[in-house]
């Protein structure tokens, strides 16, 4: 399809702004460079973007079992409330006395998220999960420095971890020590003991881990780190399996981040905006980013923690994302939040049980909210890869599972159905998998060629960067 720059005619524009009602001013020196922006009518403009949105797979287009991403249904009431003018039209620097409702949203969300995680304090400033990781690691850094223990320069990260973990540790100035996983996908305790020591600043861990298994040694793991003088960081990417059932704070974690765009049902927006609040135990609260919200006798105000690491973002984070998450928390409450987790786990185990009949699982036994299949045998025997199967699913309106992650499983497909999918949907997708695996044996080429029915066929391997076009050329 054409680019927006190739539509319309020069000189075409919408009538959006009135004539100037004051004397016109000019700058002494103005840009000479031409400004080439689209020139389309409103009808053409809306058609262009409708066409683009037709080329996107959203939650309402079909099953979205993207492992580790928690693509659950995004409630419409949350969208409606986030769009209230009483939130969208508030200037972030207007007097707090005139923005008490905004501060109440922040304060209430902070308190409720503390209750859910077992943490004592929380900041809502980080704008995404990785941003939360960076923030949490800075709390750990500030804690050790404050205790005059600057030799703690290493962060331990399991080899199954999401790439943001080691990248965040580097940004926070730590060296990364990779900890191998044991054959069951959990932390290798011996390797952990060997790595933990006086130079350990902390450990980053997801639990359930990235292969969907709750690490049964979790209390031993956090104890090993604490005994070595380090702190434990909980990556909340997989919280949906245990939200309201088990709390990171009770597992021995000192700091954690949450992905409101996963566990708390705020939409992903095609890659953001998200929100990555960071919670911590009382000993770390004095390092939290400024400002924090405080409540006294029903009045809210901003305060700066005593030894704050400073700001990690302008203003108070992705505020209207927090509004959505708060509405979700209020809807589910103490009764339904654990039910969400339990149904996420039930759905995943149901699909795992059904698919075990036709496919090898990377790890046996029960899973939590997601599980990993390995198509290594299928690939060896038929030449059909995990990627081919993923592309085959596309032809049937199913978003593929996560592929080639975690890095420790070959030909991996990671499936996370979420609690908001029905048995009926899962049954039909299980049936689809059975069919595709059969196709792999009878007609492998059909899967190499997939997808055939999507808007765009499979793209070739990206061209070498020197041939990559990164912007439209008007010439």
């Amino acid at each position: 399809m054409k680019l927006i720059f190739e539509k319309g005619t020069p000189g075409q524009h919408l009538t959006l702004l009135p004539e100037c009602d004051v004397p016109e001013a000019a700058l002494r020196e103005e840009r000479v460079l031409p400004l080439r922006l689209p020139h389309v009518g409103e009808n053409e403009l809306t058609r262009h973007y409708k066409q683009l949105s037709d080329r996107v797979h959203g939650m309402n287009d079909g099953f979205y079992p993207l492992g580790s991403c928690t693509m659950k249904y995004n409630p419409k009431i949350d969208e409606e409330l986030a769009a209230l003018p009483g939130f969208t039209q508030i200037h972030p620097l207007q007097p707090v006395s005139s923005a008490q409702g905004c501060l109440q949203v922040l304060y209430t969300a902070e308190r409720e998220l503390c209750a859910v995680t077992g943490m004592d304090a929380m900041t809502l400033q980080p704008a995404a999960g990785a941003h939360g990781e960076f923030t949490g690691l800075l709390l750990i850094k500030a804690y050790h420095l404050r205790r005059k223990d600057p030799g703690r320069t290493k962060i331990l990260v399991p080899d199954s971890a999401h790439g943001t973990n080691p990248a965040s540790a580097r940004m926070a100035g730590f060296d990364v020590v990779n900890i191998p996983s044991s054959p069951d996908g959990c932390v290798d305790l011996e390797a952990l003991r060997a790595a933990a020591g006086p130079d350990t600043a902390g450990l980053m861990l997801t639990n359930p881990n990235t292969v969907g298994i709750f690490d049964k040694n979790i209390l031993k793991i956090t104890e090993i780190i604490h005994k070595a003088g380090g702190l434990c960081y909980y990556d909340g990417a997989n919280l949906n399996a245990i939200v309201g059932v088990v709390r990171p704070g009770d597992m021995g974690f000192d700091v954690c981040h949450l992905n409101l765009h996963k566990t708390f049902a705020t939409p992903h927006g095609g890659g953001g905006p998200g929100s990555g609040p960071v919670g911590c135990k009382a000993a770390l609260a004095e390092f939290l980013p400024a400002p924090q919200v405080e409540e006294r006798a029903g009045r809210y105000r901003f305060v700066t923690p005593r030894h704050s690491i400073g700001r990690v973002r302008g203003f108070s984070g992705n505020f209207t994302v927090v509004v959505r998450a708060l509405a979700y928390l209020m809807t589910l409450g103490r009764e339904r939040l654990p039910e969400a987790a339990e149904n996420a786990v039930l759905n995943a185990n149901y699909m795992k049980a059904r698919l075990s009949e036709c496919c090898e699982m990377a790890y046996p036994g029960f899973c939590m909210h997601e599980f990993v299949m390995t198509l290594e045998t299928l690939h060896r025997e038929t030449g059909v890869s995990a990627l081919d199967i993923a592309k085959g699913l596309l032809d049937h309106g199913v978003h593929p599972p996560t592929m080639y992650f975690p890095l420790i499983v070959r030909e991996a497909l990671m499936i996370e159905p979420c609690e908001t999918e029905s048995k009926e949907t899962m049954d039909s997708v299980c049936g689809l998998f059975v069919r595709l695996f059969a196709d792999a044996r009878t007609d492998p080429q059909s899967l190499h060629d997939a997808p055939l029915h999507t808007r765009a066929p499979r793209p070739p391997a990206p061209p070498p960067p020197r041939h990559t076009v990164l912007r439209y050329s008007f010439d």
Partner: protein
Amino acid sequence: MGSYVPNTEATRREMLDVIGVRSVRELYENVPPEMFLQSLDLPHEQSELEVRSAVTAMAEKNRVFRTCLRGAGAYRHFIPAVVKSITSREELVTAYTPYQAEISQGILQSIFEYQTMLCELTGMDVSNASVYDGATAAAESITMCRDRRRSRALVSAAANPQVIDVMRTYCFGSGAELIIVPARDGRTDPEALRAALGTDTACFYLQQPNYWGLLEDAAGLGEIVHAAGAKFVMGVNPIACALMKTPGECGADVAVGEGQPLGLDTAFGGPYLGFMTASAAMMRQLPGRIVGQTRDVDGALGYVLTLTAREQHIRREKASSNICSNEQLCAFAAGVYLSAMGADGLRQAARLSLSKAHYLAGRLESAGLPLLYSGEFFHEFVTACSEKTARTVCRALERNGILGGLPVEGGLLWCATELVTRAEMDRAAAIAKEALA
């Protein structure tokens, strides 16, 4: 079972039978029994009707000012109706990151278009798909410019204080040293800049227009920076870019900024949009996602995520940044906004903002609030007064539904955009005059 879970008790039983367990709790077999939460300290569940009432009540506690004369990093501009109409489409709102190119061409193409528009605005060669906000974009730019020999970053004291704060926090992480170059008469002092530059300086960050609204001699300062072998980073207002000499024309190596003025609400601070553009030579140092145009197997044009060897999911601890989720839907909104405005519309918005700010400054001066600095300004300026007077003026304006200038050192920082009318400004000036009397 309520709250978005479709499973009924009967289907749950069927599913448990297939799995071969009697209860869901058996699936949590790895969890140490003592760890299960006994009571969750949350309020009780609520119906949609109750949630709507309760959250609406919170929104109603906030005061929406009819007239806004405050900016300082968040700007109320006109947003064409098509922006919200298009960006509320469910596919766009609910999709994941476009890793699956075949079913994400819409988002990928929109990013490619956005990248192009941002390059046009800033006069730079390449753009990424966005970062969290203007402040984090500024902080990430330091990482782009650092190497083994050059580890110190300089920032103008005339930059937005929140941006400087975020830079400082990021530098606490990376170990880079951040030095603030003083300002004189509201603008960056070139002599102080020259003195602060050294062989270990990685970059200098200049905000244009600066925090107090003043125009800096960007090209001149850029030359000083380059003469010392450091990189020149500019933080710019995207609407001002329609009129002003672009960062590209000023010799910037990296140009970043807060994209909120491009069709996003002030929304108490977010979500906003951090944009990052760079010269071709700095392309590989850009953090975050970048979309490239390519040809698919049939020879048709298509779009893919490219240059991914910079990113965390490939490079882990060696990545140029940890960023994963960015602000895609906000970047999409900015693309729709710029398409709706077009070059003429954007220039008109910039020209109106410029003209109205100058009119407002004149009216306030007549009311007894003279300009603090004498330099040329865009759509923000500082009027001189004592702290006490600033409070008095603001309170009087607020009582009349007007959000006045932001109290800053030396006075009040005002802003005018195309949204305010001459009548509103006359009224604000009259109220200020009365408050001063």
